[in-house]
């Protein structure tokens, strides 16, 4: 290695050691154990039985598990796609128009990010309750026909959980995109205007390509958040009614500590990890390709 004389080399390991030890014991080793456990049929108490890849093939064949991953896809729409649309609209407005109260608006929309998800879930349970604020609002608007116990409804429970995700992620996406848009040089907009572009064309020709990187980051963060939904489901629906809101993260917990199927739980956890890595890798590859 072409190291300048005297530049610290080996001492680096000493600085890394404490962090690495904690990291290896409490993160790297457990993920290795997860892979190992996932190859067994194990109830967590008695001796495990070798199962090979059965726990993984079950993810495709077991209806409840397949449904769980399907629900995660629906949540991606609510957590990532809708917030991206909302965020692009709001950020374009905020960047363009000299809006009063920008600081206050930013504080408000970013607030959900810092509140514990359990608190968020308790609040939304109240909103969705049969005698909750959403039904009261609908009643006040004369839409009594639409009122229902949202989280207890087979059709509406999953979208109801999804809307919480939309609420939670939209502010983050907006602030992220706004930061990107404010870096676009004014001359680009002026040039577009001189070429006779309207607001919409300008948005697609100038704004959108300039924030490609921010869009990739926003999608990575929100898609991962969607796939990792746990607290929200645990507090609001526990996967119900039936299995209409079961998601992979909740299934990991439910199988390991509720059903005593630790091998299956580990397999879901490992699969989820691989899916998260693959998706964030793919999103970033696509974003990189677009820029070159």
């Amino acid at each position: 290695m072409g190291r300048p004389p005297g530049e610290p080399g080996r001492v680096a390991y000493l600085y890394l050691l404490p962090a690495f030890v904690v990291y290896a014991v409490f993160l790297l080793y457990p993920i290795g154990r997860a892979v190992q456990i996932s190859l067994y049929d194990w109830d967590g108490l008695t001796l495990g039985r070798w199962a090979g890849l059965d726990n993984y093939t079950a993810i495709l064949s077991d209806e409840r598990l397949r449904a769980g991953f399907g629900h995660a896809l629906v949540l991606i729409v609510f957590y990532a796609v809708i917030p991206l649309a909302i965020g692009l609209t709001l950020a374009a407005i905020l960047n363009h128009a000299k809006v009063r109260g920008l600081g206050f608006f930013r504080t408000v929309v970013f607030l959900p990010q810092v509140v514990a998800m359990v608190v968020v879930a308790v609040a939304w349970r109240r909103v969705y309750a049969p005698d909750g604020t959403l039904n009261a609002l609908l009643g006040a608007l004369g839409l009594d026909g639409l009122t229902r116990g949202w989280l207890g409804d087979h059709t509406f429970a999953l979208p109801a959980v999804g809307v919480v995700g939309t609420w939670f992620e939209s502010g983050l996406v907006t602030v992220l995109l706004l930061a990107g848009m404010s870096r676009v040089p004014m001359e680009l907009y002026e040039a577009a205007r001189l070429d006779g572009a309207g607001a919409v064309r300008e948005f697609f020709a100038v704004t959108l390509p300039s924030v490609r990187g921010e869009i990739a980051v926003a999608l990575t963060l929100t898609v991962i958040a969607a796939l990792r939904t746990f607290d929200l489901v645990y507090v609001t629906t526990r996967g119900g009614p039936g299995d209409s809101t079961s998601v992979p993260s909740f299934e990991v917990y439910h199988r390991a500590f509720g059903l005593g199927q630790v091998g299956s739980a580990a397999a879901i956890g490992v699969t989820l990890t691989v899916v998260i890595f693959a998706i964030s890798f793919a999103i970033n590859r696509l974003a990189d390709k677009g820029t070159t």
Partner: protein
Amino acid sequence: MISRAERVANYVILSAFAAFALFPVVTILGAALGPDDAGPAGQAWGPHLGNFAAAWEAGHFGTYLRSSLAVSSFVVVVSVVLSIMSGYAFGTMRFRGHTVLFYLFMLGIMMPSEAIAVPLYFDLRTLGLIDTFWSVALPQVALSVAFGTFWMRAYFRASSRAIVEAARIDGASTWRTLWQVLVPPARPAIVTLTVLVFMWTWNEFLIPLIMVTSESLRTAPLGLAFFQGQYTSGFTLLAAGSVIVATPVVVFYLFLQRHFVRGLLQGAVRE
């Protein structure tokens, strides 16, 4: 220039979204400050601050906040110090295995905690370490150190090489260079890391849920989830409890908003 109609439309869209963002917050605050819906009828109007005292008593939030404070302080101090050291090594030194080790640390940033919590539970149970302070705190140190290493490395890499060189030529040890030369100007980056780790640890739910069974170790979000399961007569005290659990991080956020926003946005942006 922007037309009047466009301006009105802008304000309508922004107000509608602000209302959507505030709707659940207003729901909770309204319930927490309103008359106790499980109490006697005909209570006076106006803010009922007594709800917080009642929730504090009924929900044992004193105990939960204390364990949250203990866990968060430990995780913040340990992971920030460890991250400064490992970030220093990755950011300013060259050594064999640099790249491989760095990627190994990066794995932890995206790792879902549910994937590691399950095997950890069973291994720690074998060792008799389940339901201890360590079983809650140390896994969170590991998760935070992954991000912290990444964060501090980015900072130290961008900081001036000349300063490090000068300190070495002056005969300062690597240890003194780190703590007396590099860390003082790094304060903003360290504050950002501190508030992020504090927030993540305070709000963490899954790890305490799995690791803790005794009430004295329950953290605030976990205590709130239990309170919700047990306390079913009305919503007022549950709302008051939620406000109690959320307040510490929200107060930090209102004062150090810049750090929260910067950390959550830049932390995600890889080079």
